[in-house]
Every structure is written in C-alpha cells, then in structure tokens.
C-alpha cells in the first residue's frame, strides 16, 4: 500500500516536471479558471454597458453629453473623497468609515466659513477671496480632524484584530454625524455660491462655469498629490510603510508620523471635496457624508483600492455611470441611483476584488 503510494507520487512528480518543461507555467488550474471567469465577466459587462450607452446616445445625443458632464463633475468630487479612502487603506488596511462624514463636516465648515465668518454671499472679489482662503482653511481643517481621529482612536488599535478598528471607524462615523447634526441642523440648508457662475454654450450643450472651476481646482490637487506620493521623500516613506511597517522602522522611517501624514493628506482632500461640493450643489445636510462616502468608497474599490489613479478613474467612472443612470431616457432613474452604485460595487468585488487598475495579492503566511 505504502509502496504504490510512493510510486504513484513519483510518477506524478515526473509528469509534472515534463509538463513544466514543455509548457510555460501560467498559473494553477484554479487561477486559470478565475482568469477566465474574470475575462468573460468583463467582456459581458462592458458589452452590455456599451449597448446601453449607444442606445441612449442615438435616442438623445445632447442630453447624453449634458448628463455625462454633470456626472463627471460629481465624479471629480467622488475621486477626491475616494483618495482619502485609498490612501488610508493602502497604508493601514482600514476602511475608514468616518471619512465620508469628515467630508460632510468639511462642507458644513466651508459654508459657515464663507457665509458667516467672512460674510461673502455673492460672486464678487470679496467672494472669490473668501473662496480662496476657505480652500486653504478647509484643507487644514480636514487634515487636523483626520489626524486627531487617527491619534485618538485608530493608533491604539493598530495591532488589534481587524474587526476592532473597523467597528471603531463606524463609531467615529456616528460621532462625526452627531457633530454635523448639531452644527448644520437636522434639515438640509441652502447656501449661496461665491464663485463665478453662469453658462457657456458649445453648440447646443450647456456647460456651467462652476463645473469648469471644479476641474480647474480639482485636477491640480490630484496632480500635486500624485507628485507628493511618487516624487518626494515623504511619499517614499509612505509607500515603504504601506509595504512593511517593521522593515520601514528598521530603515529609520518614523511610522507613526508617516501614517499621521497619510491621514492628513486624505483629510485635506476630503476638505477640498467638501468645499467644492458645497459650492457646486449649494446644500448641506448632516447625513450627506454617509451616502457620498459609500459612493466614494465604491469608486476606490472599483479602481483598485490602494491605487491613487485607480481612485481617480473609479470616481470619474462612478460619477459618469450615476449621471447617465439619473438623466437618460432608457435607465433606471434617480430612485435607483444608490442601488446601481452598490450593484457595481458587488459585481466588482465578486469578479475582480483587486479592482480595475489593482493587482491581486496572494496572502502569505
């Protein structure tokens, strides 16, 4: 009995060696099957998407472009929030549920800063100045709050089982929600816009000036963040910490400081997103953070969490899809907006958990 088992094992071994000599190794059967599932799923989904878009484009071409632009505008805000999720997840593998609520607080902060503390309520030089100073102030505000949250709660739980920081993050989200509720009031509030508004027409298509402003401010922020992470010493420290905390400590990197810096960056981005949202939409409410935060997180997952450009691409894509779904003749409509976004999240997580631009990592023991 034993003998045959050993012989069988031997023969199997020889066979395996021969196969690997003649054929290049591309993956275990399981991995190959997974690849096939991913590929066919991607093809089916992208085919369906393009058919849907094409039908709508033929039916109402102007409307299509119009809603696509407004969708992309929201997408930029999602992208800015998603960066915060992706940065934090990249470095300490925590889904920071409180991030969406930080964005909400930033939006409320900007409203109060511009309207009450500076007293600007229309688009004149004073308003523009208020906007510019608010951009700086709200980014500092977001950064400080996020660093505080990290310092008070998450840092103490860094080595705890993963359930603990996740539940703490949910609790933090409730706490910020409460602050928002007390600050903003329980009903949505309207605020004046201080950046130049108006419309530009390109042919039949109307583009709001605010949209242009959003891209003029948002895109440089994204580029600056990318530069910071890829080209500076601090960015290098961040990337090193995200790969291996112990090894980075040995290399002389202050891990605590680096993680705090990452939270500050994410918070600053959420702050900027809060201001841009408040100026483009004009209303704030205390429960805004939860929904937008979830959508932004979906964007981060869609692009590949931990990947900066993934978050941007994911945000723009989700914004586009949501815009198209809400505004096109053949679509589910606004009532199903949330469901569509979450359905995308689930499909992505089932078929390609690593995201569009991410690489799948195998767990090492």
């Amino acid at each position, binding site marked *: 009995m034993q003998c045959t088992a050993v012989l069988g094992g031997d023969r199997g071994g020889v066979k395996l060696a021969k196969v690997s000599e003649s054929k290049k190794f591309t993956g275990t059967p399981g991995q190959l099957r997974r690849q096939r599932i991913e590929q066919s799923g991607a093809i089916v989904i992208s085919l369906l998407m393009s058919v849907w878009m094409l039908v709508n484009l033929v039916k109402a071409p102007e409307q299509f472009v119009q809603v696509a632009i407004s969708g992309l505008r929201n997408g930029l805000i999602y992208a800015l929030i998603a960066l915060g999720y992706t940065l934090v997840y990249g470095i300490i593998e925590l889904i920071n549920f409180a991030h969406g609520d930080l964005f909400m607080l930033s939006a409320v902060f900007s409203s109060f800063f511009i309207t009450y503390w500076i007293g600007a309520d229309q688009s004149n030089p004073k308003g523009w100045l208020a906007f510019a100073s608010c951009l700086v102030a709200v980014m500092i505000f977001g950064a400080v709050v996020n660093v505080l949250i990290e310092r008070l709660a998450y840092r103490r739980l860094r080595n*705890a089982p993963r359930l603990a920081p996740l*539940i*703490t993050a*949910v609790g933090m989200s*409730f706490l910020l929600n*409460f602050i928002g509720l007390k600050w903003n009031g329980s009903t949505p509030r309207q605020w004046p816009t201080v950046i130049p508004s108006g419309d530009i027409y390109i042919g039949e298509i109307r583009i709001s000036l605010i949209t242009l402003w959003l891209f003029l401010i948002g895109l440089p922020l994204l580029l600056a963040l990318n530069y910071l992470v890829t080209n500076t010493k601090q960015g290098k420290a961040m990337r090193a910490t995200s790969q291996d905390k112990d090894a980075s400590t040995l290399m002389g990197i202050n891990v605590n400081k680096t993680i705090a810096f990452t939270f500050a960056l994410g918070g600053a981005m959420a702050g900027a997103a809060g201001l841009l949202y408040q100026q483009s939409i004009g209303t704030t409410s205390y429960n805004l953070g939860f929904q937008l935060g979830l959508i932004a997180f979906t964007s981060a997952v869609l692009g590949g969490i931990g990947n900066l450009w993934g978050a941007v691409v994911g945000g723009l894509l989700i914004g586009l899809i949501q815009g198209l779904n809400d505004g096109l003749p053949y679509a589910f409509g606004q009532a199903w907006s949330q469901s569509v976004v979450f359905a995308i999240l689930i499909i992505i997580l089932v078929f390609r958990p690593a995201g569009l631009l991410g690489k799948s990592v195998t767990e090492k023991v």
Partner: protein
Amino acid sequence: MAKTIAPNNVAKSNRKWITGYSIIGLLLFITYQFLLPWEGLPLGIYDAIYRWMPPSAINESLVYIIMALGLNIVVGYAGLLDLGYVAFWAIGGYCAGWFMSEFFYFLNINFLGSVPAEAPGIHINFWMVLLIGGFVCAVFGILIGAPTLRLKSDYLALVTLGFGEIIPQVFFNGENFFGYNISNGTKGIVGVDSIPVGVKNLGPFDFGWKLLIFLLLTAVMVFISLRLRRGRLGRAWLAIREDELAASMMGVPLMRTKLSAYAVGAFAGGLGGVAFATHVNGVYAERFNFTISIFLLAMVVLGGMGNVWGVILGAFILSWVNGNGLTAFGQLYNEQFGTEIDFASFTFLLFGLVLIFMMLFKREGLLPESRLKLMLHEDELDQIDASSKSGDK
C-alpha cells in the same frame, strides 16, 4: 461525541438556564398582563412602569434581542462582519406583509389564518409565516453569501452593506417594481393579521400575551445559539473566527461553514422581521435603514460578541435607551431643570461613543466570552510574549 462531552452536564446546564429564563419571563408576563391592569396597583408604580418601560417598549426590545442573537451568530460566532443585517429584517417583515394581510387583495388564500375565510388577500397562520419568513431569509442569506464569502473580511463587510442598501431600496421603490406593486412603496403595508393561539387571536394591543410569545421566540433563539455553539458546526465557526487559514488546514470546509452561519443568522432576522411586523401592525419601508444595522451591531459589541447572555443584555440596554429610556430621561431632566434639551438627538453620539469606547477599552463587551477575550487581546499578549523573550536574552 457522547464520550467527549458528558451528556449529563449538557442537560444540567440546559436545565439551569431554562429554569432561570422561565422564572424571569413569567415574572415579566405577570407584571404586564395582570399587575398593570389591576386596580389595586399604587398609582406611583403604574406611572413609573409606563414612563420607564411601557408594554410596547419591552416587546420591541425582545424583537431587537431576537435579531441581535441572529447577528451574533454571524459576527460573534463566525467572525464575519455583517453591516447589512437590516436587509433580513426587511425581507422578514415583508413576508409578514405579503402572507398575513390584505395586500394581495385580488387573491383569496386562507390557510389556518386568523381572519374569516372570505377576507381578500393571503392569510396564512402566523406560526407558519414565522417559518416562511425565516426560511426565505435563510435562502437570501445563502444567495448573498455564496458569491461573496470568498472575499477578505472587510470586503465582505462592504458587500453586505451594499445588499443592506439595495434590498430596502427595492422595497422603498417597490410600488412600481417593473410594473408590479410588491411593497406599496413609502405608504407601507398597514394592518397585519393577529396571532392565533387557539383560544383567541392576539391583535396589536394584546401586549401582555404577545410578550409571552416574543419571550418564547427569544428562548428558541437562545436555545438554537447555545446548542449550535456546542456542536460540530459551532466549533467550526469559532475555529474560522479565530484563524480562517488554520481552520481550513484542519479540514473545516470554509464555504459551507460560513454559509451556514449566514443562513442561521438570516433565519433569526426573518423571525425578528415577522415578529416586528405583528408588533407594529404593519410594514413600513422607511424604517429599514443603515442605522438599524449599526444599531444591532452596537448591541452585539456592547454585550459581548459570542456570548448569548451578553448579547441579550446589550440588546436590551440599547433598544431601551433608543426606544424609551433616553426620551423618558430627557423628559424627567427637562421637567426638573426647566430646560428644553432634545435628548433624542443624542442617540448618534451615544452609539458612536459606545462603539468607540468599547473597542478601545473593553473589546470583549460587558459579559465577555472567555475565548474571544483571549483572541481580541492577542496584540497585548504578543507584546508580553516579546518582552519576556527579550528579557531572557
């Protein structure tokens, strides 16, 4: 099996909790059914009970306890974070709405229902609807779990959250779901059949008798939780919770074990959903929101993940605070000091702080489970281990 766990001990420990539980349950039932309507009761006690723990509040907390026990199986036993548990509540609730009301007025199906046979709509006996609700939820639990349980823990949390958002939205927009009305939308389904218990039918205001029924359902859930934990499946859940990889190496079938945790947890959600529908005498779509999922999670965390009695305590405290305690306290406070503070708006603060402080200072909950306590403080043990090792050298 019979040799490894002495059967006598099992029976004895079962007898112990059943006796204690029945005594407390009976006392509660006698208080609410016979003492409250009794004319000889001093007015002070009557007022105090109505202010601090009215009959409807205690029934509602029992429904929350049933659902928290279900979530405890998923989160506490199997260690899978579920942030969309409210979906099962909603499905269970709509099972009651569909099968125990006049919602499908164009049909006329009556199966041991508590209404006259000629009444329109589907009327199935409450006890059967309980089972139907439970099983429908279990099927949904498996449907949701099957494609997603391969994922890492926090991704799984997100997928459950996604389902927890989608399913209530389906019911919310359900007035025109591809041309069919499946939920009456925001209007909700008003009026659910009473509970037949042989001699009489329990309507929405028979609080005392319904208390007894909810106590019975809770006991069933406690029984299921305790028995399952001791059995093969429960031990497999605990193994997965503690180390998934090690468990799979030891031959625990991951998928099947996790799916069964999902199914049993969802079953309890269904029971809770049907019970809640009879409690409020209707199903209302806007009640099923994300806050409820977090609320249930906070109950499990506060009481002690994995420990049935801890979860019951946590669920009781939090549902009481949220439903009645905070407003009653606020009223008293405002009367005493002449202030006008809206205490109900502090629930967010309260739940946020409960989650944060429990995780920071007492991760294992009020009534901890010994095994989980060890696991949750693994980081500290590692540090002690490391420092003692370095001390040796």
